[in-house]
């Protein structure tokens, strides 16, 4: 074992395991201190291999650093801190413990230097995140089970792909993979399931909104963005990803437009935002990859902010449907303002963090002369403002007066929202520090007059479209069927049907087998039973009679012959 550094992942994972055993007073301290200690360790990781360990005959690289790893680990650690601050008053300790392990495993993924280490942390992440979903209580049980099943499926695909890769190349190294073999296709499929790529995307809007008011803040940050990291690492410039990403972008918008549950709107918008990143990875130039990485960084923070404001509303009112909410700006001013900052950031409004990251991706498409991709990304940017930028704050905080008069949430939740809002605006105004830690050198200037005016036109006119078509966007008490219908309804119906058919067939088989057996046994009994012809005790008289007949016949025959 060669070590020049303490693995940052281990602090949060062990911390999470120990947390439930700590006295209650120490827990709050640990939840805040562990992520900060991790952040410090993340920046101690040097470039190159920092920790090796032997495992089952392989030499694993548990920690390997470079700019891309540090970028993701940094935002994961920041998010563990901000989420922990927001969740300080969460009294379900299982959720907090699982959330720390979850953040730690995500950091483990981004520092993993070989495919086996990556897989181990990948699966730890799946287990810990399932526990985060489940800790919301009995209502989350079904969704959590479906979530776990999908992620285990993803894990199986990934493991099969890794095994194939090792068998054919003999290498465990994580690096750029050409999509030229089945095993690499399986690895990509495993990654894309975690990224929420269609058609296996509905686990995300199915499970995340069932978690607790604080749980979804953690869930939104790690799984999908760890998937973006591995895609950036292994499949940059894979053209297929452009189309996968664009589909995710529009799928997210259309389903979010139709959705009534405020946190499910934000769940669909995670798929939408990850779609932008996946498209950038597919474009594959340095600008596009920087854009995808930067967008993952900013997205984690503004999506957490949006979910914190939604979580605050859920915490204070117990309600989550747009049809039951509205008018909360009166008594929740801070939550409203923070929600709006998050909404503007996700919409890439100038002076917010989304603007300095997302515009890199669409500019990369323009520079590469990918005309259709550029126009679709522009349309999608308008669509983001529509489905998340205005829709979320409008229906939750304004719209109608729901009569609800909840106050802003407790201090720690307010502090976490203010922290994230400050980061959103800070990065938007001064993008320099973020650009400095991106994987490739940045010579990008987001704030040109043409750029700013273009985005303002795009966003403000999509706002106009929203208010002019408000009648069409009126919320109803409905859900929209998604791919998960296949396993939640069709699969169930088929299984029941199959069960019934099999049962009927079985009854038929057993009945006819019974009839046959009864037929055989009654036949046997008829001839061989106690009164059967072949088993009957014959009286002596009958024998004498037949003897007489035979002798008589013999006598007659002998007369006839002579």
């Amino acid at each position: 074992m060669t070590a020049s550094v303490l693995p940052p992942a281990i602090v949060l994972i062990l911390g999470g395991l120990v947390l439930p055993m700590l006295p209650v007073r120490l827990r709050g301290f640990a939840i805040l201190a562990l992520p900060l200690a991790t952040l410090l360790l993340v920046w101690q990781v040097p470039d190159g291999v920092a920790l090796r360990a032997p495992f089952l005959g392989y030499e694993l690289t548990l920690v390997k650093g470079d700019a891309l790893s540090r970028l993701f680990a940094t935002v994961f650690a920041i998010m563990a801190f901000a989420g922990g601050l927001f969740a300080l008053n969460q009294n379900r300790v299982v959720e907090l413990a699982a959330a720390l392990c979850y953040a730690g495993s995500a950091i483990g993924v981004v520092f993993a230097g070989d495919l086996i280490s990556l897989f181990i942390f990948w699966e730890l992440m799946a287990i810990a995140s399932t526990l985060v979903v489940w800790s919301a209580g009995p209502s989350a049980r079904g969704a959590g089970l479906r979530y776990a099943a999908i992620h285990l499926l993803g894990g199986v695909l990934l493991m099969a792909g890794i095994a194939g890769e090792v068998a054919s190349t003999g290498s465990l190294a994580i690096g750029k993979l050409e999509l030229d073999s089945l095993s690499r296709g399986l690895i990509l499929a495993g990654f894309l399931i975690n990224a929420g790529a269609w058609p296996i995307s509905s686990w995300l809007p199915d499970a995340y909104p069932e978690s607790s008011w604080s749980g979804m803040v953690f869930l939104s940050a790690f799984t999908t963005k760890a998937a973006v990291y591995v895609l950036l690492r292994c499949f940059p410039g894979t053209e297929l990803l452009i189309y996968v990403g664009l589909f995710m972008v529009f799928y997210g918008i259309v389903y979010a437009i139709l959705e009534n549950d405020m946190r499910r709107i934000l769940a669909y918008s995670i798929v939408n935002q990850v779609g932008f990143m996946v498209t950038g990875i597919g474009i594959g130039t340095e600008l596009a990859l920087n854009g995808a990485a930067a967008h993952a960084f900013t997205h984690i923070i503004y999506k957490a902010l949006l979910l914190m404001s939604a979580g605050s509303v859920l915490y204070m009112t117990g309600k989550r449907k747009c049809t039951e909410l509205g008018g909360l700006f009166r008594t929740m001013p801070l939550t409203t303002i923070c929600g709006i900052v998050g909404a503007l950031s996700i919409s890439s409004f100038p002076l917010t963090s989304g603007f300095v990251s997302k515009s890199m991706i669409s500019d990369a498409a323009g520079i590469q002369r990918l005309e259709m991709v550029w126009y679709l990304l522009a349309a999608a940017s308008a669509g983001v403002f529509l489905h998340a930028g205005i829709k979320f704050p409008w229906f939750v905080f304004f719209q109608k007066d729901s009569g609800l008069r909840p106050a802003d949430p407790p201090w720690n939740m307010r502090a976490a929202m203010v922290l994230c809002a400050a980061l959103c605006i800070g990065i938007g105004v001064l993008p320099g520090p973020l650009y400095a830690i991106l994987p490739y050198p940045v010579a990008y200037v987001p704030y040109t007059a043409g750029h700013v005016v273009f985005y303002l036109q795009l966003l403000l006119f999509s706002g106009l479209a929203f208010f002019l078509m408000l009648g069409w966007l009126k919320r109803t008490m409905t859900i929209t069927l998604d791919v998960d219908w296949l396993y939640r309804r069709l699969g169930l119906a088929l299984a029941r049907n199959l069960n019934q058919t099999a049962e009927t067939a079985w009854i038929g088989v057993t009945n006819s087998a019974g009839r046959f057996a009864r037929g055989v046994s009654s036949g046997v009994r008829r001839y061989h039973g106690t009164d059967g012809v072949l088993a009957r005790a014959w009286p002596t008289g009958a024998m004498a009679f037949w003897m007489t007949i035979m002798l008589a016949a013999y006598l007659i025959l002998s007369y006839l012959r002579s």
Partner: protein
Amino acid sequence: MNDHSDHDHWLTRASTIRRLWIGSIVVLAATVLMDLAIDHHPHFGLDGTFGFGAWFGFAACVAMIVFAKALGAILKRPDTYYDS
């Protein structure tokens, strides 16, 4: 927006909302007119047209809302659908 607007929050008063609409329209017009003053660097052809961001953003949103509405007509179910 609100029936008892006189004694409710100032933001919900009809006069405020009218002012907000007027202010928004002025801002919208201003962003389009700024196209006269600044030099865009279009990547392709269409994106260099006057007020491209404005008309494209508006049209894209209308198209997405109409598409979503049509999809919803087929795929919408009561939100208790999976509970039964």
